[in-house]
């Protein structure tokens, strides 16, 4: 078994995220100032079998260890917090240079100025280890999220394991003869739950523009994690939530460049309808770039009532994900569904057997939901 390399000086103090959160709150309350390095070497791609990256990181860390007055604390699972007073700009720059291609491995905070994002990072670590968020925040849950909250989230989202937050639902392909086969597993990310972990007490509901921005931040982070860990796909096909602009980003180019041939054609990118409507050229380009990488696109969150007007817009998509299967079953016999769309429809949330039967009779073969699981 490959042992994970250790970091830091010989003298290290064990510290739980909640303890760290209380400590930094006290530092701020007392008017003190500290500089903090949060180090997560397990975020290195290929960890622990990444000798070159580990050596580069270790060389940069040695200079931090040599700073006067550094206290080295060990968080659970090999994460570290190095704390010292002000200074060490050159050493911090060295850490940043060593980790520039591996976001999420190291972050530097100045307390009290950066207390909030540091607390968010600690909350994320605590959540990953199954602990309650250490930041005590009570109050009404319906305070709308603000741009300032997202600025804080942006600083720490590199620390959050999004893959572990995905929930899966099976999408089945129903054969004309009566059988069914697993088409792909559809993963989704609860953005409100993610925000709730990082900024307790905030809601996305009244702020669709900020929700869109959080979605983009999350999809970029998700791609970066997928690039490092291809195991999510398992042996079958998967669908992951995606943002059109992210498909055109360097993160996607990195994923494409490193994607093994066996995974080509097995990762479906779900791009919501609203993004396609907001910029059809961007959506078209994203779908083509994805197709060139052998990743089909599913135009998702389409409502049954939209189908009649979507022939042109949905043309670049391989699949069209339709919500509200019951309404779709009602509408499909009544409203015109453009012929090119019908065989590409993926009906979600099929809850009733009768809905399933009606959709199958209408030629819809791809379905998910309790009734599809049970059939």
């Amino acid at each position, binding site marked *: 078994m490959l042992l994970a390399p250790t970091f830091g000086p010989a003298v290290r103090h064990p510290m739980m995220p909640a303890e760290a959160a209380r400590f930094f709150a006290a530092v701020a309350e007392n008017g003190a100032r500290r500089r903090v390095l949060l180090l997560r070497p397990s975020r290195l791609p290929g960890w622990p079998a990444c000798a070159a990256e580990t050596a580069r990181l270790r060389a940069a860390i040695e200079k931090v260890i040599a700073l006067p007055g550094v206290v080295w604390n060990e968080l659970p699972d090999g994460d570290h917090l190095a704390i010292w007073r002000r200074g060490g700009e050159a050493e911090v720059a060295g850490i940043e240079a060593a980790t520039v291609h591996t976001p999420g491995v190291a972050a530097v905070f100045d307390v009290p100025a950066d207390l909030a994002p540091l607390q968010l990072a600690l909350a994320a670590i605590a959540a990953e280890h199954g602990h309650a968020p250490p930041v005590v925040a009570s109050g009404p849950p319906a305070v*709308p999220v603000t*741009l*300032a909250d*997202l*600025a804080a*989230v*942006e*600083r720490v989202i590199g620390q959050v394991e999004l893959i572990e937050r995905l929930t899966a639902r099976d999408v089945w392909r129903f054969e004309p003869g009566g059988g069914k086969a697993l088409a792909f597993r559809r993963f989704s990310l609860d953005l409100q739950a993610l925000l709730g972990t990082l900024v307790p007490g905030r809601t996305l*509901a*009244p*702020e*669709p*523009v*900020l929700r*869109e*921005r959080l979605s983009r931040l999350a999809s970029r982070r998700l791609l970066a994690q997928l690039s490092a860990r291809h195991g999510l796909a398992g042996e079958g096909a998967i669908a992951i939530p995606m943002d059109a*602009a992210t*498909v*055109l*980003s*360097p993160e*996607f*180019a990195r994923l*494409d*460049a490193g994607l093994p041939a066996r995974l080509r054609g097995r990762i479906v990118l779900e791009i*919501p*309808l*609203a*993004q396609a*409507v*907001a*910029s*059809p*050229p*961007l959506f*078209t*380009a994203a779908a*083509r*770039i994805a197709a*060139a990488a052998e990743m089909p696109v599913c135009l998702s*969150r389409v*409502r049954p*009532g*939209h189908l*009649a*007007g*979507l*022939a*042109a*817009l949905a043309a670049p998509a391989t699949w069209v994900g339709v919500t509200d299967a019951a309404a779709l079953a009602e509408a499909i016999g009544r409203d015109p569904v453009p012929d090119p769309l019908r065989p590409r429809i993926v009906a979600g949330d099929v809850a009733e057997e009768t809905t399933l039967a009606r959709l199958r009779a209408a030629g819809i073969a791809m379905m998910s939901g309790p009734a599809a699981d049970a059939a």
Partner: protein
Amino acid sequence: MCAGMDLALRQAIERGEAAWALAVSVPPAARLAPVRGALARLAARTVPEARVTETAEGLIVWDRGEGEPAAAGRLAARLAGLLPEAPDAVRRCRLPEDAGSLAAALRAPGGWSSATAGVASDPGSEALHALARTLAALPPEAWVRRRPVVSLRHGATARPVAHRLEVDAAVVLKALRSAAPPPPDQLRLLEPLLLAAAPRLVGSEPADGRLLLPLAPEAVLGGAYDRLEQAIGRGSMARIVPAIALADAAAAPRAMASARARLAADGQRLLLACDAAACLGLLALLATPGDIVALPSWAAQEAGVEAVRGLGPQRLLLAACRAEADIAFGLGLGIGLFEGPVVEALLGRGG
């Protein structure tokens, strides 16, 4: 993708050096900044040893040497697959034979960025938050751009019947110290500022003038909208016309229905804004007869006369009119409301 590479190509041309090149012409619809970045990355990844230079039309991927590498052939095929609407998008060139055409491409006015109203990369939430704070501390007149909307009929004098509000891009550029504005979806993060500034701005409109205010349907149901109503009085709310993006209306049908109910109770109309011909089918499904429907002139012309007639020209606002021919196109269809640079020029000349 930088001036240095541009210079290197110019030198290769001037010195008559041997080189191979792929001149890639990208259709206007695909010249968005993120698409540009993705294509350039694809080129750099497929032919790592090559250089990538931006031109007004697209890209030149090139390198010195007698023969074109096999990877360049693969890149040409991939780019052709990504740009199917332009069959001649990728042109294989050799230097010094094709020096004239490559030099002309480099000399063409405006780089790709300026040719496509370049868009800066994401400045980050922190910078956008700082920008929002900066703008909020200033009087709205310093950062709000009021785009006049005129009612035009053949032979009648143009006069503004409304103003569409937007954050002044020049102020944003200055505040962010950027050469190009952030992507439009990120400028939407500043919409709450426009809503907060609306009470003051409506006061400077003529008595019968209306303000077109970009809002998400959820915002029509929020506290800030309540405060607007309190500030100007319910009786004046008919002067506020929420301009809702079609994408938002499609994404949130329940909020849209609630917003419609609230607006109807106050005697307000709403404007549904569609930015592309490809979305006209959806627009026809989601717009109600009482809505004003805004469509950019280029999208209306791309969609064609019949499609525009199907929307009902009498409720259309032809936006982004850049030439008098755009206005003539709209008038010919019976459209009465116009907005855009040519409208502003027309008003500047006294209608």
